[in-house]
């Protein structure tokens, strides 16, 4: 059993901990050992703090010994994307700009995990400031896909997906602005869920695009995704965009809704472009599976799909250009060693030139341009209007169906370096995921098969605040397959 401890699910481990058949310290040690054993190959972590993790585990064991367990997550090591603030831990966003920054406060989702006893484990790699689809934009390292070390793990939550797939954490947190949870989850063969905008507080998530960002779970099973989503959800007074809505019991919901005959939509625009992509075959098989369960499959139309990528790259870059202005070389960020001391503008220019990577600069410039006077109406304002139309497309589709099924990504994980010099083709790898962020709806990716030995994800898009339905639909598929028990050979 113990050699496979690192691949057990949180729900299994939670039971073992509760029955005192396992201690959090032993579990955490196993995760640390696994991390060290494969980290040279995977490279999922920007940093980790063994002593801190073990101290958290000891505290958890002490609580259990005193019958004061804080719930199912108490003692479970959870990996954290390095753009979420954890008090006393580095917060680099995989940027040279924040290489030396240590957060003096906890993000709300981190605070919630702490109050539920989770063992916060490590700082997981990402594309710099979550801008990218491969983790190749990290200033520190490129994470490898555990299924094929020559391939990228996806991004921007590549470290989170790879660590979950490689058993370097029981589960992980990521963030999703245009597919940054779902796309790497699909590439690494794990479950990834982007909640409805407003479901999870953004307080303490280093902002990329404020109106699109959401924190969510990456796990090896649907049930664990439900568990982790439950733990981090809820209204937060510190985030005005977090929504006041009752939190369902997601874990109970997926059991309760077993056997429900869902009406599932296939957006024809997605399948028209996806028809010949390598990721298509497992997705079509998954659709057949739902049919065989008695679900109704309907073709639906999302007529404004073609505008999604352009709309996204205007809204996201505009917000990013403003959000990243705070990294200026004045207070806590990288400051250039040499600059013209008589000219404060030169501190900005030199520090930002050195501190930001290529892709971040590209997006800041793009965002600055689309907000410029004279261009605002043509770009930003127009994009906001297009965004409304895209959201209405989904509202109309959801009048007919419970959820939509699509591929998560046009292709399985690509080779490192393959798209690094072609930003546009990189942007297009988000083509199926970004609309959910523009519309604010929840989406998840679920392992549904392989293409050339690389995992392929099925994307399920759902109605706002109906994550319980998404999870139930995914759970149904997972129960009929054994993908969750298949792990990469490392």
């Amino acid at each position, binding site marked *: 059993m113990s050699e496979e401890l690192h691949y057990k699910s949180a729900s299994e481990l939670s039971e073992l901990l509760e029955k005192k058949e396992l201690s959090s310290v032993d579990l955490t040690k196993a995760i640390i050992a696994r991390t060290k054993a494969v980290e040279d190959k995977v490279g999922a972590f920007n940093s980790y703090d063994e002593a801190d993790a073990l101290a958290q585990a000891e505290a958890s064991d002490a609580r259990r010994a005193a019958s004061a367990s804080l719930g199912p997550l108490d003692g479970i090591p959870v990996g954290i994307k390095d*753009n*979420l*603030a954890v008090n006393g831990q580095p*917060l680099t*966003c995989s940027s040279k700009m*924040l290489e030396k*920054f240590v*957060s*003096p*406060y906890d*993000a709300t989702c981190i605070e919630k995990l702490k109050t539920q006893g989770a063992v916060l484990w490590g700082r997981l790699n990402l594309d710099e400031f979550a801008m990218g689809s491969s983790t190749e934009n990290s200033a520190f390292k490129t994470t490898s896909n555990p299924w094929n070390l020559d391939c990228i793990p996806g991004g921007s939550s590549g470290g989170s997906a790879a660590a979950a797939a490689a058993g370097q954490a029981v589960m992980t947190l990521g963030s999703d602005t245009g597919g940054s949870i779902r796309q790497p989850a699909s590439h690494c063969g794990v479950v990834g869920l982007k909640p409805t905008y407003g479901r999870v507080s*953004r*307080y*303490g*998530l*280093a*902002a990329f*695009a*404020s*109106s699109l960002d959401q924190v969510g779970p990456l796990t090896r099973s649907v049930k664990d995704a439900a568990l982790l989503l439950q733990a981090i959800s809820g209204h937060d*007074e*510190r*985030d*005005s*965009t977090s929504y006041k809505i009752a939190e369902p019991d997601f874990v109970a919901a997926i059991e309760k809704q077993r056997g429900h005959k869902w009406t599932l939509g296939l957006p024809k625009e997605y399948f028209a472009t996806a028809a010949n992509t390598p990721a298509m075959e497992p997705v079509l098989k998954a659709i057949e599976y739902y049919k065989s369960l008695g679900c109704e499959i309907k073709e639906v139309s999302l007529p404004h799909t073609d505008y999604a990528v352009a709309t996204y790259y205007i809204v996201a870059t*505009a*917000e990013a*250009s*403003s959000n990243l*202005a*705070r*990294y*200026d070389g*004045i*207070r*806590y960020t990288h400051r250039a060693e040499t600059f013209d*001391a008589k000219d*404060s*503008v030169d501190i*900005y220019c030199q520090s930002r030139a050195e501190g930001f990577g290529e892709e971040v600069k590209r997006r800041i410039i793009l965002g*600055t341009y689309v*907000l*410029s*006077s004279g261009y*605002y109406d043509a770009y*930003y304002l127009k994009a906001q209007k297009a965004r409304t139309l895209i959201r209405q497309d989904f509202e109309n589709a959801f009048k007919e169906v419970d959820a939509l099924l699509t591929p998560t990504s046009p292709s399985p994980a690509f080779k490192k370096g393959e798209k690094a010099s072609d930003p546009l083709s990189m942007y297009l790898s988000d083509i199926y995921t970004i609309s959910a962020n523009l519309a604010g709806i929840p989406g998840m990716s679920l392992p549904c098969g392989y293409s050339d030995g690389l995992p392929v994800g099925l994307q399920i898009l759902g109605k706002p605040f109906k994550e319980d339905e998404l999870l139930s639909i995914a759970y149904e598929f997972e129960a009929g397959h054994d993908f969750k028990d298949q792990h990469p050979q490392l």
Partner: protein
Amino acid sequence: MEYEAVIGLEVHVQIKAESKIFSRVRAGYGHEPNKLVDPVVMGLPGALPVMNKAALDGIIKAGLALNCTIPETCKWDRKNYFYPDSPNNYQITQYDQPICDGGFVEIELPGETRGVMGEHKKIKLTRIHLENDVGKLNHFADDSLVDYNRAFTSLMEIVSEPDMHSGEEAFAFLTAIRQTMIYCGISDCDMEKGQMRADANISVRPIGQKELGQKIELKNLNSITGVKNGIEYEIKRQTRELKKGNVIKQATWRWNADLGQTEMMREKEDAHDYRYFPDPDLMPVRIDEDWKAKLRAEIPELPWDKQRRFMEEYGLPYSITAVLVPDRVLSDWFEAAVKQAPKLAQALGNLVANDLLRELSEADMALEECKITPDTLLGLVQVVEKGVIPKNVANKDVFPEMFKSGETAEQVIERKGLKPDFDEGQVKVWCQEAIDENPKPVQNYRDGNEKALNALLGPVMKKSKGKANPQLVNKLIRELID
């Protein structure tokens, strides 16, 4: 050719609130640098702004007091620019949907003399919007340091139309805003603490010309007097330039109060592109009628209304109301006394506006610390009215004692034995003696010189050792002669 000036003001006023506009950190002045900060104020990664309701209450109240329209919804925008005093390198402000639209400020220009009411005018406002204040840069020989204590203090910007024409009007405009804010408890408007700051846009044009002249922006106006002086200087300078046939160039100037002159800061640069866009971290705010009604009910009677009422209801002269009304606490204090005896308004008004303010100023005391209460002051005026002691004794001997000890007028009179130890009969005797001893003035009076009898007052007062009531003495002398 004759010229006229056109002036618009942009006035920043800090709203008095416990915490900052977008964070729960305390707002304050005079603390050790960078103590009033948190992740939001420092612009740390992941920090998010959350609107402070007290700031909204403050600006809505200000808008209602300054006759603005409050639209049903307003929203928040980011104004993007890099400056070290701005933690996020954008300011959260209101671009195209401010919380207050239009409105006006009623001002009073100086009268012919200090005792005469001047002309009242309405100065139009464009808008009032809410935004965050920024930190403060401190420059030293080799470097500059930033203090973020002030950053994210609630700040409103009151923008006037180009509707003023002199330094005096600008002075009156700021004075009226300041009084209104203090009356409503929205801000203390202490310019030394930066709670109120003003920039002026000034242009000059030939009288009769419709289009505005080229404006310059005048900064560094650190006091209300500075605003007046700076504007007056700048009007003269621009008029002189135009008369010489020179062209005014768009530029930003600063007022140098030490030298008493304006100096050019910078010529027009390329217009700043602030790349305004709606702040995605904050929701628009809807302001319903109930909210407005609740705040409207909290607005006290405003200074001009109170002044007009004091003059009508209590028959007070303008000069006294002009002293009492600008200070809400003082005028409320005064009214607590006068509403019990409106007929004694003049006597009470004089005592408050002259004696009380003088004593307070000499003792360097605030009204709140004063031992005299509205009731005891009224008691003093009433003993004079009843003829118990003469007014001069009341003002000179009793009032200062009351101020020191907090005793009632009766207690002071009793303790110091100021009450006359004789009756009216005795006064009559002294009057008759005085008439007999001074035949000349009496004859003059009989010949028609009314004032001649004043000469008899002194001798009677002397006989009474200053305790006789002068009004009574006058009355008795006349009765005895007639």
